[in-house]
Structure formats: C-alpha cells, structure tokens
C-alpha cells in the first residue's frame, strides 16, 4: 500500500510542477537557513569534553572582595574573579584534595627551529602539570606526558602539538630530542595528536576560539623562568613592577581544574574550598566574608556566556524564517490538496475510507518533506561553506557539518512538513464525495 501511495504522490507532484517546486523550495530554503545557523550555534555552544564534563570542575575565589564588582570586566552573575591568584592555585595544588588537579596559565615562548635556515617563531604555550593530559583525555601520537618528578623539579621538558612537530621535525618521532625555547634547551617527552577543544573551556580568556596551543611545559618550570602570562591578567590594585610581582600579588592570572569522580567528592571539595577561604580570612588576607564557587564544564561555559549574542540573534531570525516557510508550505499544500478534491471524491466514492485518504495525503507530504530536506541539506552545506569563509579563521573548524547536522536537517524537514500537512490533509479527507461528483 505504501509503495502505491508513494507512486501516487510522485505522480501528483509531477502533475502540478510549479506548486511542487514552490513547496519544495520553500521548505528547503527554510530548513537550509535555520540549519546553517543551528549548526553554527551547536558548534559554538557544544560541550568540548562531553564525556567528562560533569566530573571536571574549576574553583573561583572571591579575593577581590566588595571592591571587585567594577574590576571584573566581564559582568557575571556573582562578580567573582574569573581566574585565581598564583597563591591560591599553588595552595590548592599542594592540598591535593581531588583525584587530579592541575594549575595552568597561558604563555608564549620563542622557539629557535632546529633547521638553522628557519627564523625563530613565537608559539602559544600552556604551562601546566603532567596530569593535564590524563584529566582532559589528550591523545598522544608519540611518547607520553612528562612525569610528576619533572613537575616537582621544574624540569626543562615539553610536549609538542602534532602541527608544530610537523613544522619543526617533518612529522618524525621527536621524543627524546631537544628544542631551544627562549634560548634554553628543552627535552621533548611526547607529541600529542590534533587536540584543540572548541571553545577552549579550560581557559576561555586566552582566545576563546583562538589558534591551538602548540607547546605544553611544566607550570613550575614556566614560573621558575618567570614566563609572562599571555592570557587575561586582572588586578584590583597596581601590583608594582619587577619579575616576581605577579607571584605575590592579588592579581588573578592562573586557572585551576580538578577532577572529582562523584557527588560525594564534589561536596567534600566544596566544603574544603569554603574552609580554605575562611582560613584565608582568618589569617587576615580577606577583610570580607569571602565567597567561593565550584563549577563543572557546562556550568562554566554557561556562566561565561560564550555563545555570542550575534549567533543567538541569527538563530532566532532563522527560526522565524523557518516558521514563514512552513506557513507558506501549509498554504501551498492546502491549495494543492483542495485542487485534487475531485480525485479524492472519486477515491472515496470507490470505497476508500477517510483514513486511507488521510494516509495517502500524508505520504505525499512526506515525499515533499524529504525532497525539501535534501534541498535544505544542500543549502546548509553551501551556507556553512560561506559562513566558514566569513567568520574569522579559527571558527572554520566549527562549521564543518557532521552526520548529526544532516540527520537533524532531514528529520526536521520531514517532521515540520508533516506537521504543516496536518490541516490540509484533514481538510482533504473531509471533502464530501457527493458534492464534487455532482459538479463533474
């Protein structure tokens, strides 16, 4: 029966070519436009580390106090500083209250390529702990992270990103070789595969969607070398000048992430954090009832409102657009089905019941939906291609459509078309057979 209905549907669609093309185009354009923005939206707001999102947490500490409200440039709901002071990061690292904990900050180093013909280059670098790679499930192409001993000893060791390894060593296994950073030799312990979470949830303020960090080195080493922060540094008071000033100041410039395996651990860590803050107040560092907060990855992304309002507006416009296209499709389908009322009457007179007519019209609508969906997927590819060229370089990676996008587009198209077809179909199945037969 379904085969017969599909056959009938195709026949009927061919019969009234202009209306069919209008309908398919309307649905296709609506789906294409809304899906283009929806996939940009999805990519920008997606959780970059879905599997562990609810187990990774970042603490915040109110070291600014009541005076901090104007100092936090990104206005958030609770006016807490977005980062930690060096003092707090080191204290929380030492306390070792979570299964894994890593302090980190963004820096840059000048790299002298091993090939003397190449000029020195500047490379975005993350200073962190060996646990970084375990905690964030970073895949390795060669070698492994440095050891905890290297962390303790501020050893000159690094992990490279594959891209940099390709540029400097032609993609060869460079583990064990050395590289000159800021005129010092560093031993390479590993090369990671392509890994660039978007958005870079662990440090949203060193270029939200920016280029990847290509060198990783021990936090302790970077601090020992006084490598400057290349991320956001916020101070409430002038910290003064000198190489050590950031280490002892109340300026925030480091990030800390902890892995907590279950709710009990989260509760325990929260109370530890509150206790730590209270202790700092007791020793006179804070003259106010200092607050603290602990957020997991998705809460952190939401708190920082990383989806730009532009994309939200665009999404909204596209949904309105889809609505117009569907209203349009309802109208056209109504026209189409009612124009076929005589056909329907003949079928009814020959014994088809209302359900059969209803089913047949829905199949026809479904075929229109699939065709519209295919047009929509084509337009979405085109739209994403255009968007990739227009949005700034780094966002290109965001806008590669995946199987999920295509599936959503097709499902949305068929679903929306069937929904739009409900009323016209109902009307068609309720025409009075006798009425039209008389006219003929």
């Amino acid at each position, binding site marked *: 029966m379904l085969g017969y209905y599909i056959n009938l549907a195709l026949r009927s669609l061919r019969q009234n070519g202009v209306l069919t093309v209008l309908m398919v185009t309307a649905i296709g354009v609506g789906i294409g436009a809304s899906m283009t923005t929806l996939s940009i939206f999805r990519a920008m707001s997606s959780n970059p580390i879905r599997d562990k999102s609810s187990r990774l947490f970042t603490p915040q500490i109110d070291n600014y106090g009541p005076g901090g409200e104007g100092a936090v440039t990104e206005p958030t709901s609770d006016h807490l500083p977005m980062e930690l002071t060096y003092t707090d990061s080191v204290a929380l690292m030492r306390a070792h209250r979570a299964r894994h904990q890593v302090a980190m900050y963004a820096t840059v180093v000048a790299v002298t390529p091993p090939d003397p013909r190449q000029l020195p280059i500047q490379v975005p670098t993350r200073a962190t702990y060996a646990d970084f790679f375990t905690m964030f499930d970073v895949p390795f192409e060669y070698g492994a992270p440095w050891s905890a001993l290297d962390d303790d000893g501020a050893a000159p060791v690094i992990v490279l990103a594959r891209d940099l390894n390709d540029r400097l060593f032609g993609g060869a296994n460079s583990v064990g070789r050395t590289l000159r950073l800021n005129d010092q030799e560093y031993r390479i312990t590993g090369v990671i595969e392509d890994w660039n979470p978007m958005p870079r949830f662990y440090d949203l303020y060193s270029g939200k969607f920016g280029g990847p960090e290509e060198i990783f080195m021990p936090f302790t080493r970077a601090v020992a070398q006084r490598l400057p922060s290349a991320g956001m540094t916020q101070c409430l008071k*002038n910290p003064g000048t000198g190489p050590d000033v950031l280490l002892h100041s109340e300026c925030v410039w480091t990030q800390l992430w902890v892995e907590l395996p279950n709710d009990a651990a989260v509760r325990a860590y929260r109370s530890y954090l509150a206790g730590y803050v209270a202790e700092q107040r007791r020793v006179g560092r804070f003259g106010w009832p200092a607050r603290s907060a602990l957020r997991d990855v998705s809460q952190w992304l939401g708190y920082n409102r990383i989806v730009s309002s532009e994309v939200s507006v665009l999404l909204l416009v596209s949904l309105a657009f889809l609505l117009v296209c569907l209203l349009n499709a309802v109208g056209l389908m109504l026209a189409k089905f009612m*124009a076929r009322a005589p056909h329907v009457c003949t079928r009814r007179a020959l014994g088809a019941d209302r359900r059969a007519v209803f089913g047949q019209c829905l199949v026809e609508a479904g075929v229109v939906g699939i065709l519209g969906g295919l047009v929509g997927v084509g337009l979405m590819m085109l739209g994403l291609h255009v968007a990739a060229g227009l949005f700034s370089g780094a966002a290109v990676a965001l806008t590669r459509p995946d199987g999920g996008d295509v599936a959503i587009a097709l499902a949305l198209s068929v679903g929306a078309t069937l929904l739009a077809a409900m009323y016209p179909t109902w009307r068609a199945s309720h025409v009075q057979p006798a009425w039209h037969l008389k006219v003929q």
Partner: protein
Amino acid sequence: MELRPVIAAMRRNRVGALLIAMQIAVTLAVLCNAVYIVQQRLSWTARPSGVDEADVFVISNQLIGSQRDLGSRIQTDLAALRAVPGIRDSYASNQQPLDNGEDEFGITLDPDHPAATRFTTVYYGDQRALATLGLTLSAGRNFNASEIGDCGDLPSGSLGGALVTRELAKQLDASGNVLGRVATLVPISLHVPIVGVIDRLEAPNVDLFGGSSIVEQSIILSCRFVNSRVDYIVHAMPGRLAETMRVAPLALAAVSRDRVILSVRSLHESRREIYRSDRTIALMLTLVCIIIVAVAVFGIVGLTSYWVSQRRRQIGIRRALGATRPAIVRYFQTENFLIAAVGVVIGAVLAVGGNLWMVERFAMTRLPFAYPLLGIVAMLSFGQLAVLWPALRAASVPPAVAARGV
C-alpha cells in the same frame, strides 16, 4: 470599490487568508529587526578610527635574546625604520587601533569620588605619536621631549603628560575643560597632567564595546614603550605603503635577527579583520531578508493563483454581468490589501516586541519608530506586487466561462 463582497468571500476562505496574514506578520517582524541590526553593524564598521589609515602600518615584534638594553634596541630599530626611504615617521607602542588590545583602566580627575571614574584605553607614545598616527590636535599641545619617560609594563607614580580624546575629555568634565588638570588612572594610581586634546582615536577593542561611546575614550601617555613585545607604528609617505611594508622588516632584520616579527599589517587589513564578524552578520541577515521576502511573495502568488483557479466560474459570471477587467484586478488587490493590513498590524507588534526582548537579553538598542512604519509600507507594496500576476490572470478569464459547465 465595494468591500462587502470581498469580505464575504474571505469569510469562506478563512484559513488561506489567515496563513497569508501570518506570513506577512512574521516576515515584517524579521525584516524590521534584521534591517535594523544590519544598518547598525554597517554604521559601526564605517566609524573612523581617527588615524590616517591609508598610510599607516604596524610591525609587531617580539624581541628575543638579551633583555637588558631593550630601550636602546627599540630606539635603534626605530631609527633604522625612519632611515628607510618612503617612511615618514615611526614610534613604539603597546597597542594599535583596530586590533584587540587589553590595557583598559579607570580614569578620573577626582580620585576622592569613585563615581566620577570613567573607562579608558591606554596607548603609549612619544612626541612622534601624533604625527605618525596622523591625529588631529583640537586643543592644547603635543608632548615635549622632556615629558617623555620610559614605560615597561605598567607605569605608576607620575608621568610627564597625557593626550586625551575629545570624548574622554567630555566624560571627565562635562564642559570638556581638562587642559592642565591632573588625571588619575586606577587601579594603578598613576598621576598625569593632561596637555592636549585630540579629535578622535578609537580604542583597539572596537568589537568589545560595540556601539558604545567607550570606544572613543582613549588616552595617550607620554611614554617610550620598553618591552620585548612591542608594536612599531609606521607612517609611510602617500602611495608608498605597499613598498615600505615589504622593505621595513628587512631593515629590522638587518639591525638584528634576535627577534620574531609576528606580523606586518596595514591598518586597512586590521580594519577588515576586526570587523569581519560584523560584516558576516550583516551579510547573512541581508540574505535572510531577501529570501524571506521572496518566500512570502511566492507564497502569496501560489495561494492567490489557487483562489483564482477555484473561482474561475464566479469571475466569468461577474464578467458576463458587466464587470470590467480592471474591476476584477481591483477585487484581488483589495482582497490582498485587507489581508496584508491585518498581517502588518500584527507584524508591527511582533517587530517591536521582538526588539524589546532583544534589548532585554542582548543589550540591543531600541528600534526607531521609522522601522516598523517603513516595514508596513514595504510589506503592503510587496503584497500588491505579488498579487498582480494572479489578478491579471483572473482578469483574463473570458465571460463565456459563465455559460460553460454544470
């Protein structure tokens, strides 16, 4: 034109009419808001930076190797740049206009009243800064050589002088009377007398501040910037930008290779880059507008054509009873006008409501009244345009149709 028969016919075709009205309503709402956003974005991207953009480029440098005599290394670099034929002037700064910089501070003439604190963006520059950037001095004077000091990362204490933009002067003192007064930068508590007022100089973070006037509240501190990460701002002689942009890095490499040249970019390129997302949004919304209007128009064409074909007999009867062709065309035009009128009224409400919601949610500005009004006129005209072809087809129905059939 008698309205009654039109309305009576519409009553019998309520759903179709409602569908068209709703399409028109949503289209109008989207159109108003989208055009408003586009217009706003384009006007942002057209704001002048205050700099002579055609002739200025920036070399971003990271000096490596020994960091002990950075000050003299930078001065040697600058001298080498000025010796390049075709380069008029150059100086060292912490940041450049039309690029994402960071040095933002509070500023006030009255440190005892925190409420008087305004927001500012700090540029460092010596007495060559004005000429190199091509800025216009509207009051006061340029820095003296004696006022220039060396600045590392964050200066504190006091400095020789500052140039503020007219907008910042207005913010600091409603009468704009700031010359000779001492400004305090917070939180670094730096005290500096204001020696001059410049017409205009945009902060680097034009996109961060969107349409806000904070973007025009810049200050230039009388500083020779001494830092391993330094921007050389270079002014080429007219027409010699491309040539000097090619030669200048070579001149620097000849001075010393202990450096990473991060980029050599003209302000034109910086402008293109920083406004890229604004242009993208504007372009996408424009496309959406065009397509949404097209879809609505085709929808009207399709549905009206269907009505025409449904009513062929009635039209034939009217024609046989003496109605002229223009009368038939007018009938369909009136019908469309009535439907569209309902649509645009709902649409105008939706447009304003949508805008208010965005004001609340995304810090948008209020939609000027002209937008819904122009939108109404536009949608009514599009409706009339869309209905023309089906109406003409209806008018061509011969009166003989009335005699046929049944």
